[in-house]
């Protein structure tokens, strides 16, 4: 065992990379839940995003097109959730599970020809001077562009939810859909847009795993990140900045356990590998006492007949 081999600068830098897929998916789901919809299909949308992004960037040679395709892929899959929950008025828990089961199978089908293929690399941003500052440079200013997109998205969602009219309407729909309907807001339309946004974000998060974090394609490669993202929204009490904090915390745990595995700590690999899931459970337990910040209409079906 040699803990001295773990480089703290690299550790923090890779923590941010590990956190980004979680952050992207969680921010999307946060908006969906703020609109009063519980979409448990995050894992399914992420994995579909992962393979659509991977396939398109391999075919076109452009990671940017890949990420766009991933966002579209995630949104298209979430459209199925829209059909089920907003038009067929199906149970949201069951529909979300259906989305995940279908997404896992569908991505495996799409990805058959892509196992073992290497995707084109996106390359890191390098800003002269700033990126070369010791310690701070490698940690903050030498990453791929999508990582910064994740942070920008967090800021944007925070501003929109907190300071704009659109955010106010979205929250109204999530808190009390009957009242929002009575005020003349199009509850279903707003929710559809929120779900599509969530799908696109989850797709981006998935593609970040297959194109940057890993980068290759294997079946079921999201390995529960989508579910952790759902837990993260609860952890964040539906607040964007706390989602960022939570994502970095979980990213940190993931990276740390990988580093400990590599350093050959006396703890068996399996126990280290299960630690992020166990810590997720612990965090959920600690935070579940306070449910006051959850949107009041979360998971309830809206039908404008009354």
């Amino acid at each position, binding site marked *: 065992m040699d803990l001295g081999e773990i480089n703290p600068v690299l550790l923090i830098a890779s923590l941010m990379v590990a956190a980004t897929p979680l952050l992207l998916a969680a921010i999307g789901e946060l908006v969906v839940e703020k609109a009063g919809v519980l979409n448990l299909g995050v894992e399914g949308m992420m994995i579909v995003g992962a393979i659509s992004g991977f396939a398109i960037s391999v075919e076109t040679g452009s990671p940017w097109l890949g990420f766009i395709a991933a966002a579209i892929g995630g949104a298209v899959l979430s459209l199925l959730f829209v059909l089920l929950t907003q038009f067929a008025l199906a149970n949201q828990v069951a529909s979300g599970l259906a989305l995940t089961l279908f997404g896992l199978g569908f991505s495996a089908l799409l990805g058959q020809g892509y196992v073992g293929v290497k995707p084109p690399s996106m390359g890191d941003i390098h800003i002269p001077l700033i990126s070369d500052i010791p310690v701070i440079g490698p940690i903050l200013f030498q990453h791929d562009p999508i990582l910064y997109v994740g942070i920008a998205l967090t800021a944007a969602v925070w501003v929109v939810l907190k300071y704009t009219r659109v955010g106010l309407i979205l929250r109204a729909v999530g808190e009390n859909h009957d009242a929002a309907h009575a005020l003349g807001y199009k509850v279903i339309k707003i929710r559809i847009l929120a779900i599509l946004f969530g799908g696109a974000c989850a797709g981006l998060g998935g593609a970040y795993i297959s194109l940057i974090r890993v980068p290759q394609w294997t079946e079921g490669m999201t390995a529960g990140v989508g579910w952790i993202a759902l837990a993260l929204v609860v952890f964040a009490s539906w607040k964007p900045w706390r989602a960022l904090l939570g994502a970095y915390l979980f990213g940190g745990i993931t990276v740390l356990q990988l580093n400990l595995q590599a350093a050959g700590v006396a703890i068996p690999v399996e126990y280290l590998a299960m630690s992020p899931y*166990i810590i997720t459970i612990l965090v959920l337990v600690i935070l579940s006492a306070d449910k006051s910040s959850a949107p009041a209409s979360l998971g309830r079906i809206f039908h404008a007949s009354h």
Partner: protein
Amino acid sequence: MIVLEKRPQPSKAWSYATPLVAVLATMVFGGILFAILGKNPIEAIGTIFWEPLFGEFAFYYRPQLLVKGAPLVLIAIGLSLGFRAGIWNIGAEGQYIMGAIFGAGAGLAFYPLDAFYIFPIMVIAGAFGGWLWASIPAFLKVRFGTNEILVSLMLVYVAEQMLASVSLGLLKNPEGFGFPGSRNLQSYESAHNAELIAGSGMHWGVVTALIAVIFAYVLLNRHMLGFHIRLTGEAPRAAKFAGVNPARLILFCLGLSGALAGLAGMFEVSGPSGVVSIDFNVGYGFTAIIVAFLGRLHPVGILLAGGLMALTYIGGEIAQSQLGLPAAAIQVFQGMLLFFLLAFDLLTNYRIRAAHSEVA
């Protein structure tokens, strides 16, 4: 313009018809999918649904129906009780793994002793393992109000790591030349869940699944607890007034579904699979969710749905070897089934009407 009108009472006819309509729609869209993959859709659908039952090698495949159907039915029966009451155990896959580890562990602890009581002890240990794993989310929900969906799901990943750990360590075959995986329980007579009638596919897991169906039917229709489960799901407020104890209900529904999933895992590891290995679990715990919904959360429906889902598993394998249909295509097919089921369920609760021009 089309509008939905809520039915005063859910339609009985549609409630029976939706699973059939969903299966038909899945066949049509599945056929389209197979056609896109470059296979003859009619041949592919025929291979999946006809070949295992009436094809040339049906004598081999029919017993497989029981082998694949039993764990699905066993798990789905447990899940359906919780789903009815709005208690979502989606971690059956983890409970299935823990049942297998506990069951196999109990059996291997006696190796090479030959005694009649070993198998019953394994059955109890398997059920206990599943119960224990499902009781974690149940306890956390009762004590702290933690979301059981996320906790039970997280525990699947923990269980998978446990499985890897014991197949490489604790339960590894000492005579296995260093390969991961336990001793084969099939060659340890006292622990082997053998076929009760040779060549029929009928093993103790199948018997237990049938008992579970009857038990669930009686529970739901003739017992106070079953009434409370249905009441909590259909009218939560009324359930409160009727004095239903939600904590007891959560512990019961999650615990029982865990125990049944654990039993399924134990019967699988001591019978058809034989070995505790890293890739022991094949997703029965997740497919059982589809089975539970396809069976409309009704015990008899689940029995039929389990049979149908087992058919798609076996037919899928045949189509894989004969037509080169990718394994993932069957997974998509099964996922589609759940989609159509949920979508067509609309017709049970709502009536579709062409709206007349409305005056505001």
